[in-house]
């Protein structure tokens, strides 16, 4: 396993952003971490990169425990894990040229001299589909899609084992998004890195991810192979999420059964008792309000769900019981 997260907890003061989350990513695997705002998905990414210190739990990167490593001890490991951010406008230093931005990690880790770095940067830019003359440009001279290619080039130049991508295509227009998604797919196949792909957009992970984990209020409610999650979502929240995302086909869209959830996402300061989803779940019964369901796998292996209603011979249907 490249990444193993065990019972991760991250509280910001009273806010229980991540509250007991376990997941793992294998070699060359793309895991889509899906959730709505406030679910804690970005916090997971920040903990993996140690941009923030976990409150408790364990994070192992390529077998090594990095949960509480000091900044200094963490530094050499930063070669192995890199991040791609959502906003290509604010995540690139506006005073650096593209060559400096992409080459900086090489110099930083003492991997290449300034002269050697030039050649590697040129090769990397070509790999992400940017013309050589882009090297001397500044970020403000580039379009959003080009900037995101620069972000990818910078993240990948050290050939990391793991890439954490937090909504990397959400700020892009559809046509640009398509080319960046194709690029990520190509690079992942060529370079073989593992990827934690954090997004709210289900169609993007359906396209890209091998496996999906769905988060709600700091916990994973369901995870499994992408095709299985889409074909047979088991948790009522996953079912609602899938049914709420409109499809770009008016005939199909208008015939779909939608599960409209009542209320709002509760505050992560004071998450509901029992199952955290019970306040919005159309199927909730007494046990859901008092006892918290564990993430278990009563049916097939590799598709665990945290719901009292999922048993070896029953899968709830949130659309039916309304």
């Amino acid at each position, binding site marked *: 396993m490249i990444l193993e997260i065990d019972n991760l907890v991250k509280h910001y003061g009273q806010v229980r952003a991540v509250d007991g989350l376990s997941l793992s990513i294998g070699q060359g695997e793309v895991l889509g971490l899906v959730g709505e705002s406030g679910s804690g998905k970005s916090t997971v990414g920040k903990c993996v990169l140690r941009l923030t210190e976990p409150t408790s739990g364990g994070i192992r990167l390529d077998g090594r425990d990095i949960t509480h490593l000091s900044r200094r001890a963490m530094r050499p490991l930063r070669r192995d894990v890199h991040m791609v951010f959502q906003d290509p406008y604010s995540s690139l230093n506006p005073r650096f040229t593209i060559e400096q931005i992409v080459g900086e990690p090489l110099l930083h880790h003492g991997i290449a001299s300034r002269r050697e770095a030039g050649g590697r940067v040129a090769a990397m830019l070509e790999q992400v589909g940017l013309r050589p003359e882009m090297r001397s440009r500044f970020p403000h001279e580039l379009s959003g899609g080009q900037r995101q290619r620069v972000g990818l080039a910078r993240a990948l130049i050290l050939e990391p084992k793991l890439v954490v991508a937090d909504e990397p295509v959400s700020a892009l227009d559809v046509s640009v998004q398509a080319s960046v998604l194709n690029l990520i797919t190509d690079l992942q196949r060529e370079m073989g890195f593992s990827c934690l792909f954090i997004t709210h957009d289900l169609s993007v992970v359906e396209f890209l991810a091998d496996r999906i984990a769905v988060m709600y209020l700091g916990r994973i409610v369901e995870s499994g192979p992408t095709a299985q999650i889409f074909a047979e979502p088991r948790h009522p929240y996953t079912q609602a999420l899938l049914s709420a995302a*409109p499809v770009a086909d008016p005939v199909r869209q208008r015939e779909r059964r939608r599960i409209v959830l009542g209320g709002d996402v509760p505050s992560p300061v004071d998450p509901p008792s029992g199952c955290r989803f019970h306040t919005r779940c159309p199927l909730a019964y007494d046990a859901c309000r008092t006892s918290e369901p564990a993430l278990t796998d009563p049916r097939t292996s590799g598709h665990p769900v945290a719901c009292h209603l999922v048993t070896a011979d029953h899968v709830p249907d949130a659309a039916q019981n309304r």
Partner: protein
Amino acid sequence: MSLLEITDLTVDFDTEDGLVQAVRGISLELGEGEILALCGESGCGKSVTAMSVPRLLPPDTTRLSGSIKLDGRELTTLPESRMRQIRGKDVSVVFQEPMTSLNPSFTVGYQITEVLRRHEGLSRRAARDRAVELLELVGIPLPARRIKEYPHQLSGGMRQRVMIAIAVACSPRVLIADEPTTALDVTIQAGVLDVFRDLRDRLGTAVILITHDLGVVADIADRAVVMYAGRAVEQAPVTELFARPRHPYTLGLMNALPSAAVNGRLAEIPGMVPSPLTDPDECAFQARCTRAQDDCRSKRPQLEPQLPDDHLAACFHPGGRS
């Protein structure tokens, strides 16, 4: 006669770089109780077109020509004092970001009653009662309590509902909604779209919905206009548009969606949008178009009826899905 008629509208902005031609001659009609989607990618002119109606563009730098008629009355030449009576009463707007468009230092109730007292001359008490009704109409639970709260006490979805309540307070003929669900989670988005549908059904409000999301268009719009580089390139009833897109740009947008992937690849639209500063006599899409021929480079195609004749496209080589 249509409720709203826009004829040959052009909008230019004075900028440091020169005259930006945001809208380059668009004509469209909006019927009573119709939901019309204006769609396209960033910079296509969809927001500028819609914001020309309530004249919410910066007066110092905007040069506008063409005609905008509401109920047969020309709006572009009305004095500002008359326009102020129309804004918020006959035409109102819901913006994308509900947090920045509500005033943080006034209660929700105050912000709704303000419009009612100004435009309808209601007493304090009558306005308060009406505000509670409006919050109920847009699906806010416990409205009598909510009107005493401040925007920061509400969730994003609830704030957007408050914005809609303010916008429909005076039963406008036309509601302009600029990416109203883009900042919201999908499970919340579905509920907000239901509010628009409901307003149309119950009050007969006509809606101009500005969106980049084809899923939202498919879900709620009656008719859609696809814009590119300041012009309408295609216009049709929604089911017809999705069943038989004629313009290669529309088709490109549909094929670029992650859900339209073929064999693990997305169809990209190569190239970039043309400069907004120049307007050569050619099809603005020709440089990116696979169907482009000599005629596309020597003159500009006009929006013309296809079969059926309520389907318009501006293309010399219109086609079906390929």
